[in-house]
């Protein structure tokens, strides 16, 4: 919508803004008439053009243009206007204040000395959204879709194929405008070329989908940066959504923005219940599906899919970890807010309730990680290990840092190829036969991504197995979040 309504210029001198549905305005109506006569006052009236009087000094503001543009919050408000703009303001009725403000004596004989005003219609919640859209000069260019009066708005969004199977928040212009306040970027800024249709995706389109996903405006910078990361050649979002394997982009957030937007890095961090965790990953997926066109059954060919394809996003518990943060381990500063995109399936439980030493626990973790994707597949898929605080304390107590932990884990994840080559044990799946007689690492260098999070109590961790890694598949990408 173009801003075809320029900010109204006020007449110089004394101006009042009133409404009839305000007892104080009604009380001071004779005062306003007096001021019109003695001091040239002009009154703007919000709800009745004949109030305070049918007279040439009363101007209809029932479209609230003057009230909205000049930020009127209370009626009555008196303004002193110079060169078309207010230079001083008085709200409500106070005789001495009005007399001084207007330079007129003897106002309101017989009236009480003081009465508070009422709320201006321009800030009434019933109209505020509509007025913002009408007057704030939206630059949004997306097609407007008018739903029929009898159409249920939620059903309408399902019918058009714009949801992930769960209800979405209808992206009205007012909601999208509020969402856009979450970023300093312009609505027409191109964020990324989104696969599979290779569509130039603007900040505006991301904001629309973020509204639908249920995001708050302050989450938008995370969604924007996540989309940039997802659409890099390294991350290969096209392959990730087209593959028959049940994988999706997993988002890990680090840095100060975690607390600023209220993300969960503790109890149930991989589950439901936290709005930021639940909606940021969903907003990324909705954007890719709606803008890029990667719908299930179309380009998305996942054999069975995964709940994590709805969106899986969580924050690291940095404060509770004795180690450097996940983002720091990937080369970012401690003060940076980042989002990491990792191509993965759903989280699976790593169970260990009896290990009391670091050696016992790391040995057991190694044994469990042998099954990452398949015990017979090595080097081709990474893993993301979400270590819980109680498990982490075993390594903290032993004085192990991240490097020591990874070295100990890796040394326990060397596989005799003879056990897993094609045909071994009568199983036709496995590693190529030319590896016979060798020892191979389960994961490539830097193929184990360790994040800390979860509640203070509970002897479980989680592993999220990856998709095809490296140049032939998808490489984990971290980006600093730009507000």
């Amino acid at each position, binding site marked *: 919508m173009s801003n075809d309504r320029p900010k109204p210029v006020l007449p110089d001198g004394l101006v009042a803004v009133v409404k009839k549905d305000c007892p104080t305005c009604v009380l001071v109506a004779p005062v306003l008439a007096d001021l019109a006569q003695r001091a040239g006052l002009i009154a703007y009236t919000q709800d009745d053009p004949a109030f305070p009087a049918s007279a040439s000094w009363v101007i209809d503001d029932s479209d609230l243009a003057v009230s909205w543009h000049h930020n009127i919050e209370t009626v009555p408000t008196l303004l002193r206007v110079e060169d078309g703009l207010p230079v001083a303001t008085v709200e409500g009725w106070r005789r001495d204040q009005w007399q001084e403000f207007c330079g007129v004596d003897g106002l309101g004989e017989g009236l009480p000395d003081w009465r508070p005003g009422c709320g201006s219609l321009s800030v009434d919640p019933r109209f505020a959204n509509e007025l913002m859209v009408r007057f704030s000069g939206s630059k*949004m260019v*997306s*097609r*407007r*879709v*008018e*739903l*029929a*009066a009898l*159409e249920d*708005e939620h059903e309408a*969004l399902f019918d058009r194929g*714009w949801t992930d199977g769960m209800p979405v928040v*209808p*992206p*009205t*212009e007012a909601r*999208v405008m509020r969402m856009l306040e979450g970023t300093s970027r312009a609505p027409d800024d191109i964020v990324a070329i*989104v696969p599979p*249709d290779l*569509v130039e*995706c603007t900040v*505006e*389109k991301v904001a*629309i*989908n973020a509204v*639908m996903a249920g995001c708050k405006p302050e989450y938008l910078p995370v969604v924007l940066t996540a989309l940039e990361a997802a659409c890099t050649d390294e991350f*290969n979002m*096209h*392959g990730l959504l087209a*593959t*028959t394997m049940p994988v999706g982009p997993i988002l890990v957030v680090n840095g100060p923005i975690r607390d600023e937007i209220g993300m969960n890095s503790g109890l149930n961090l991989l589950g439901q219940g936290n709005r930021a965790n639940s909606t940021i990953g969903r907003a990324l997926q*909705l954007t890719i599906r*709606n*803008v*890029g*066109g990667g719908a299930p059954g179309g380009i998305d060919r996942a054999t069975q899919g995964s709940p994590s394809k709805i969106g899986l996003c969580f924050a690291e518990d940095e404060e509770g970890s004795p180690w450097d943060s996940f983002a720091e381990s990937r080369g970012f500063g401690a003060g940076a807010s980042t989002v990491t995109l990792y191509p993965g399936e759903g989280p699976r439980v790593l169970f260990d309730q009896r290990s009391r030493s670091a050696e016992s626990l790391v040995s057991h973790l190694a044994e469990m990680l042998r099954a990452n994707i398949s015990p017979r597949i090595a080097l081709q898929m990474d893993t993301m290990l979400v270590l819980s605080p109680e498990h982490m304390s075993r390594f903290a107590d032993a004085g192990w840092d991240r490097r020591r932990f990874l070295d100990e884990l890796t040394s326990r994840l060397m596989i005799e190829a003879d056990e897993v080559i094609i045909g071994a044990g009568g199983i036709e799946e496995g590693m190529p036969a030319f590896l016979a007689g060798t020892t191979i690492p389960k994961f490539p260098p830097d193929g184990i991504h360790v994040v800390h999070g979860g509640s203070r109590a509970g002897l479980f961790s989680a592993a999220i197995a990856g998709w*095809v890694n490296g*140049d*032939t*598949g*998808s490489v984990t990408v971290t980006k600093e979040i730009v507000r």
Partner: protein
Amino acid sequence: MSVTILDPTGELRPATRQRVARPESLNGLTVGLLDISKPRGDVFLDHLEQKLTGLGVVVNRYRKPTFTKPAPVDLRHEIATSCDAVIEALAD
């Protein structure tokens, strides 16, 4: 009261392209066989090549660098300009 919402899609209008007519016969034609680099795609295509060559078809073999990404533009162009038809082997 009706609600107006903003279109969340890419608002694309796909270009309509004329499909090449399906050949009546493969006789004398050049057929491209594209391996997408999935396991055993070569087994399938070797078999097809044998059959097609027996029918007098000229066969060109192609291979994508990785099954996880779309075929490079140059490869698509080469197939389009030097073949009358293409068979793409999927996977496994």
